[in-house]
């Protein structure tokens, strides 16, 4: 190893530790140092690219890496900073810090930023400040969408699974009847249809916006497989509006087609409209239907119950997301909620980002 590399070794190790604390999972310090040895360790660009290749493993990592790199090496010559100072500071202890590069403070900030994202995930989305809501919006891009699958009647060749007798025999024919390996097959899988119904009445207003963001993510992940509707005083199909790639534009477009945003609730009638006009004709057939509503029903709950029962018969599974479900002291006392409960396969919470991630898991499993 060349002399300058040995000189900045402590610096680099400290940088790697900071990255690890900021949440990167594939930090490989030894590989990073080996890479630097192949390049010019005193050149800022070379250090940047060597680090990006060896310390990151996903586009999310690259984002964090870029910020931390800018902070850590801002205006500081890589070779000049005494290694020990930086390393101790980075590991959390605060010394007198005589030469005081801004690096360590910023690192602290970054770690805080990472933990703030964690806190944000568990905050009730109804109580977010506008700035927090913006931060949360960025999190949606990282939400891992999981879709339900269904097995169809057709089979496909696979390397394990049941023995495919016909294919095995055909393979034998090719070998002039000599015995040979068995061929296997399995059921082919297709993504299941999904329908998302979002209640946009006044009582749901703080949550509806976030739920539409979630729906936008789903539509983007499986175009043509996911249908999204809003329910208020009437039923509106917003799938087309949400198909736009950019979330903000999509939400604006959806807002334009929803006539009853933050209005009253006629849940039963909206659900009836869905089952009659869409559900029975195929959208809900064999689909996983996700209904997002707090169950406040102004009208007669018996219509709601009747439609929920219809829906359950048509759909594969009905998942009801109630934002209040995760809060302490929740009981399904709203007349509407009570009425539909017997016809719901899963009742899940939906008030924080973390619960959205759980919802994805539920949807995949049901």
């Amino acid at each position, binding site marked *: 190893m060349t002399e300058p590399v040995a000189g900045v070794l402590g610096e680099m190790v400290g940088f790697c530790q900071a990255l690890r604390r900021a949440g990167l999972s594939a930090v490989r310090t030894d590989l990073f140092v080996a*890479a630097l040895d192949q390049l010019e360790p005193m050149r800022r660009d070379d250090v940047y690219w060597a680090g990006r290749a*060896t310390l990151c*493993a996903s586009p999310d*990592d690259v984002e964090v890496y870029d910020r931390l790199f800018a902070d850590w090496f801002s205006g500081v010559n890589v070779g000049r900073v005494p290694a020990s100072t930086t390393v101790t500071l980075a590991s959390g202890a605060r010394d007198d810090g005589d030469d005081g590069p801004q690096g360590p403070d910023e690192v602290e900030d970054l770690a805080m930023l990472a933990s703030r994202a964690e806190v944000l995930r568990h905050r009730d989305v109804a109580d977010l400040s506008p700035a927090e809501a913006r931060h949360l919006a960025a999190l949606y891009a990282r939400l891992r969408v999981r879709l339900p699958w269904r097995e169809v009647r057709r089979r496909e060749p696979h390397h394990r699974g049941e023995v495919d007798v016909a294919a095995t025999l055909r393979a034998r024919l090719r070998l002039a009847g000599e015995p040979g390996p068995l061929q296997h097959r399995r059921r082919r899988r297709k993504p299941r249809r999904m329908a998302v119904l979002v209640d946009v009445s006044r009582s749901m207003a703080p949550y509806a916006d976030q739920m539409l963001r979630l729906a936008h993510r789903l539509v983007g992940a499986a175009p043509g497989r996911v249908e999204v509707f809003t329910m208020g005083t009437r039923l509106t199909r917003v799938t087309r509006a949400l198909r736009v790639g950019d979330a903000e534009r999509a939400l604006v477009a959806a807002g334009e087609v929803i006539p009853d945003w933050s209005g009253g609730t006629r849940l039963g009638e909206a659900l009836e409209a869905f089952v009659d006009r869409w559900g029975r004709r195929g959208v809900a057939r064999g689909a996983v239907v996700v209904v997002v509503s707090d169950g406040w029903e102004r009208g007669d709950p018996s219509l709601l119950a009747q439609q929920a029962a219809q829906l359950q018969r048509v759909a594969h599974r009905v998942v009801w997301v109630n934002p209040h479900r995760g809060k302490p002291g929740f009981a399904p006392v709203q007349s509407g909620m009570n009425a539909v409960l017997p016809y719901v396969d899963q009742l899940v919470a939906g008030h924080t980002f973390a619960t959205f991630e759980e919802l994805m898991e539920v949807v995949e499993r049901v």
Partner: protein
Amino acid sequence: MKTHSSPAELADLLAAVDYVADEGLATVCHLALALERPLMLEGEPGTGKTALATALADALDIPLIRLQCYEGIDAQQALYDWDFARQILHLRTLEASGGDVDVDATEGVLHSERFLLARPVLRALQQSPAVLLVDEIDRADDEFEAFLLETLSDYQVSIPELGTIRAETPPVVVLTSNRTRDVHDALKRRCLYHWIDHPDLDREVEIVRARLPQVSERLTRRVVEVVQRLRAENRLVKLPGVAETIDWARAVHELGRDELEFDAALLTLGALSKYREDTEHLRAVLTEQLG
């Protein structure tokens, strides 16, 4: 195999085969070669991941061996298989010739390289130096990833009947992924990682010029400008990649145009957009820009 000693020299070698690599990509490729590590490339479709592997092979003057992954691919399709039909035929021939059969020798012959079907990974180890392109690794399943990790960590394969086959110089391995599924951490830790973004305007012009020298400079620049604007707007279902830009520029050129005119642009829209939903928006943008 051509050699180089710095990222800049590698970039020059790549430029000689019409692949425009920026500093980051050249550096990462240089590191992959110097450290003998696989290179994991991720990025939007059409940003030149697969093209890089082809270009590397051309630039270094070594063969390219491609392994296209798909759901259900297994080690037999990636590594090796015995040519059972030929083995049987060989035995039948021995029987028919009626001579004395030396059992040990015959078995030895049956499991010799003569009856071995080398699949891409084994072929890469045998022919190395070579570029092994493992395309769309995210389509394969976990078991296949584990198998690949094992092979890539020591660049050798043991065949029970034949012994261990080791690459004298490890092949240059390029893995690409479209991120339809997260690749396992263990495999990623083994690799150098690079995320390829859409290029900026000047670089994209440079790329299209390198690939299509016959297309006029003015047409190229206009085409790239429109595509860049579409990407910035982000209103399409599927954003066009560099591959689409190249297709579109070529399509307009094939109509005998030197400039991007409205009618030609409309006629060749199919090169740029593969979704009906997008066509409407594209029409609007083109009308505004050219009409």
